[in-house]
């Protein structure tokens, strides 16, 4: 029987009621007295020198409060990058300035040139149209390889060239990898592109800045996955506001997928302008604006080589990647193609030698940063495509080739620095073979062929690294922040509990899942526990939600804080029961003396903590509130095996996903319903990447797919029902819950399965196509089949 409460149960989500009744509190739902509106005048050119900005006529227009340009931000800090990469020569990456509003140059379509603050949005927009901007257009740098040629136009005049860094990992393995490839019995080579994507959470970004002169305090409401990180970056690096004078609140946030991790210029602007104008300043992004101002994702061009011996064992892997940074370094941009990518290239396999070389390149495009998976989908796509291609070249079963090369003993130290604590890749593959009914594929293919359709089958594995940590290690790798998290458990006098967590829920259901853990530990009803998140004035500290870290890192902090609560409560109970601390047991919300029928209820103990008349005041303080910070000992390593079946119309090239199955190992699971939902959503996005989505630039740096009319978001009729299974479970060995993280797996594991299936379908029709770039749109597929 499934559990009906506590860890492992799937209670209905408590946050749903407000979302289903229109009573959620998203940032754009918040309006404050005296509020003004800002409209950003953005560059419509990809690259140019700003010769002059004349705001005089605009400033005189109706409703205009003030117009800001880059000149107002001279002397104010720029938007910082949170991760410094050291290059192959031991030098720090080239790190350009990133002003809040453009100074001197515009570097991508969407770069903000001026900001009009006015009484209404309409007046702000009208005035922005009256600003006269004289820009001398420069050649746009769009293609990464062209950007690195000698004499290429520079995106940043003060840098040596457009190369942010060249990174090699593990540099000491480079020669050995090359040697192994040279001497291999077989080498499979693949050149591929991981297409540029736009994260597109359904809620566009919003920022509302306020300033209170009476106490010199700034407050920013923003659509963020990590309000404390924004407070730190904006306060310390951009505006020079100390933490106690700055509150950042991220209320209900309508999806993030990575793109709401980063600190954006608009947040700093609204906070700055609220003080400068002494009025609240609100910005609400339009979707069109989001396409040219939200950080994009992916955009890697890669050559990958897999060496095999005569027995089809993998002997070496080499990956050479160009990674697009866009025009500026977004918050975690530099870490994505390096530490979040290179360390995953051993994947699920025993490949003894791995080397990756990454050239990160500045171009006149929107900055690129983490999007669901961030580096890990790129690594997975490369490895799983090249493994599949190798199987086809060698004429062996792709599942058998994978199984033959699986890592089977744990812990396993990879040749790319990380150590997998647990996993069982054969177990997830076994599950997959069942839920995907792989045995039935031949019959389904025959049915498709009867209709004149081609049918393809694709499989892949993935390994994830979640809960990036520990802080002292990531610090050595260049992170400019710690990657712990924190939780405060506040037990009230009557026994109810508020848990302040540093993680932020923007769809993940923390308000439901986190109380399941605390309720299980204490043995009280979940309804007694509320989660507080998203407000730096209420939550002590936290690094936020990304990298599938919430439960593995913040949940661990919550467990530790709850353990402290239980320890103290046992001391109080021991006093009340006149017994020794060590004899007290807690079960189902009752403290009892072992071996006796003496007990006291949770609520009596908590009341005693706050009304300490009969209380061990000489030993412990009154009250019942504890905080814990948790810094993980290692990453967690979820893994799985995915399968996709497509039907391909040879007349049109249209690919339809007929079946999709996912078998994951997430370690222990707190709420299976929420976990499945996370996988479903990730698969939807992965199918979108594989078949539909593409942020396409023309040679002038114009974004061609800059609205939902042009950028193909997956819709309900683009996807099937998914079969998901997470019963294969090897618990994480180093966090208290044994959990691994499930938020990104679906997006990481699905694109290669889809493309492997498309290739299989094309080959089944007699077309000798060995690769197709994503998205495998009808026109691309049709062209490929034409040869």
């Amino acid at each position: 029987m499934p559990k009906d409460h506590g860890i492992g149960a799937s209670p209905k989500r408590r946050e749903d009621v407000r979302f289903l009744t229109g009573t959620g509190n998203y940032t754009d739902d918040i309006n404050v007295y005296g509020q003004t509106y800002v409209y950003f005048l953005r560059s419509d050119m990809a690259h140019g020198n700003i010769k002059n900005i004349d705001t005089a006529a605009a400033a005189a227009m109706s409703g205009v409060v003030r117009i800001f340009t880059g000149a107002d931000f001279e002397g104010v800090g720029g938007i910082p990058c949170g991760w410094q990469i050291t290059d192959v020569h031991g030098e720090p990456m080239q790190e350009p300035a990133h002003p809040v509003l453009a100074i001197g140059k515009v570097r991508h379509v969407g770069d903000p040139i001026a900001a009009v603050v006015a009484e209404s949005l309409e007046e702000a927009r009208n005035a922005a149209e009256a600003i006269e901007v004289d820009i001398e257009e420069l050649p746009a740098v769009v293609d990464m390889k062209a950007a690195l040629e000698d004499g290429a136009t520079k995106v940043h005049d003060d840098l040596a060239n457009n190369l942010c860094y060249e990174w090699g990992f593990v540099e000491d393995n480079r020669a050995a990898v090359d040697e192994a490839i040279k001497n291999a019995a077989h080498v499979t080579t693949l050149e591929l592109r991981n297409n540029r994507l736009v994260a597109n959470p359904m809620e566009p970004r919003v920022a509302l800045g306020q300033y209170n002169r009476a106490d010199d305090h700034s407050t920013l409401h923003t659509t963020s996955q990590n309000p404390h990180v924004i407070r730190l970056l904006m306060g310390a690096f951009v505006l020079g506001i100390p933490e106690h004078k700055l509150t950042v609140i991220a209320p209900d946030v309508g999806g993030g997928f990575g793109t709401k991790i980063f600190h954006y210029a608009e947040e700093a602007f609204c906070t700055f302008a609220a003080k400068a104008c002494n009025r609240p300043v609100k910005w609400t992004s339009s979707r069109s604006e989001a396409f040219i101002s939200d950080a994009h994702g992916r955009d890697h061009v890669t050559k990958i080589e897999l060496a095999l011996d005569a027995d089809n064992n993998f002997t070496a892997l080499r990956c050479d990647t160009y990674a697009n940074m866009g025009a500026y370094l977004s918050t975690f941009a530099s870490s994505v193609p390096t530490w979040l990518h290179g360390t995953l290239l051993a994947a699920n396999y025993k490949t003894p030698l791995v080397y990756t070389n990454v050239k990160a390149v500045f171009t006149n495009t929107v900055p690129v940063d983490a999007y669901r998976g961030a580096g890990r989908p790129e690594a997975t796509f490369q490895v799983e495509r090249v493994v599949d291609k190798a199987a086809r070249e060698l004429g062996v079963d792709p599942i058998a080739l994978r199984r033959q090369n699986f890592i089977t003993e744990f812990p396993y130290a990879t040749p790319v620095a990380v150590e997998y604590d647990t996993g069982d890749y054969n177990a997830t593959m076994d599950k997959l073979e069942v839920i995907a009914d792989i045995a039935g594929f031949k019959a389904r293919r025959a049915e498709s062929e009867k209709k004149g359709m081609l049918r393809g089958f694709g499989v892949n594995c993935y390994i994830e690294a979640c809960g990036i940590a520990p802080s002292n290690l990531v610090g050595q790798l260049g992170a400019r922040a710690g990657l712990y998290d924190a939780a405060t458990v506040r037990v009230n006098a009557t026994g109810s509990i508020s848990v302040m967590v540093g993680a932020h829920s923007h769809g993940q259901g923390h308000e439901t899942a986190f109380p399941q853990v605390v309720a299980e530990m204490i043995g009280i009803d979940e309804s007694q526990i509320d989660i507080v998140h998203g407000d730096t004035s209420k939550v002590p500290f936290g690094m936020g939600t990304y990298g599938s870290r919430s439960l593995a890192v913040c949940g661990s902090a919550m467990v530790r804080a709850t353990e402290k609560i239980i320890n103290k409560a046992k001391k109080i109970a021991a006093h009340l029961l006149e017994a020794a601390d060590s004899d007290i047991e807690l079960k189902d919300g009752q403290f009892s003396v072992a071996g006796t029928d003496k007990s006291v209820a949770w609520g009596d103990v908590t009341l005693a903590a706050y009304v300490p008349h009969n209380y061990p005041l000489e030993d412990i303080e009154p009250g019942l509130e504890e905080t814990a910070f948790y810094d993980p000992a290692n990453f967690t390593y979820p893994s799985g095996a995915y399968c996709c079946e497509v039907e391909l119309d040879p007349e049109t090239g249209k690919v339809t996903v007929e079946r999709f199955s996912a078998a994951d190992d997430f370690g222990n699971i707190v709420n299976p319903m929420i976990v499945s939902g996370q996988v479903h959503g990730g698969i939807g996005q992965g199918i979108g990447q594989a078949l539909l989505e593409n942020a396409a630039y023309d040679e002038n740096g114009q974004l061609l797919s800059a609205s939902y009319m042009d950028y193909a978001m997956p819709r309900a009729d683009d996807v099937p029902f998914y079969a998901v299974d997470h019963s294969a479970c090897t618990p994480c060995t180093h966090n208290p819950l044994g959990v691994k993280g499930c938020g990104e797996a679906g997006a990481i594991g699905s694109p290669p399965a889809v493309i492997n299936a498309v290739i299989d379908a094309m080959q089944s029709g007699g077309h000798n196509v060995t690769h197709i770039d994503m998205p495998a749109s009808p026109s691309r597929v049709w062209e490929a089949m034409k040869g």
Partner: protein
Amino acid sequence: MTEVTMVVNGKSVTKSVKGNTLMTEFLRDELRLTGTHVGCDTSQCGACVIHVNGEAVKGCTMFAAEASGAEVKTIESMENPDGSLGVIQQAFQDHHGLQCGFCTPGMVMSASALLKDNPKPSEAEIRDYLEGNICRCTGYHNIVKAIMAASGQDVSNIAAE
């Protein structure tokens, strides 16, 4: 400015609006009914679906002045008179048909309009009908399942979680 009178969620409202005020702006800014969301500017996402005279309409595609005299329903009116969740809302909660919640009001309003015209839609009919509602969180699995359940269909053979 034009004076408009309409019935919104059962209450008559009269307001002066500009000719270019969109229905979404009227609901959100004038009436403070912020359950109707704006997720795009090309009438593609469907987060703003409302009912106007019983028909599902994207609120961003009509001016408030065009709704003069109309009966308008928004997500704020979809619960039962006793305050409990309506059948579709309850099915969305029961089957985890929402995550971040931003597309949800539009999904519920679209589903309601679908079920009025087609009380037992097939999976394919639901997916086809939702073509104008984008969700980025759920991969649509549990949304389609919730709508099938709301229409009284057995969904137990669709992967349980």
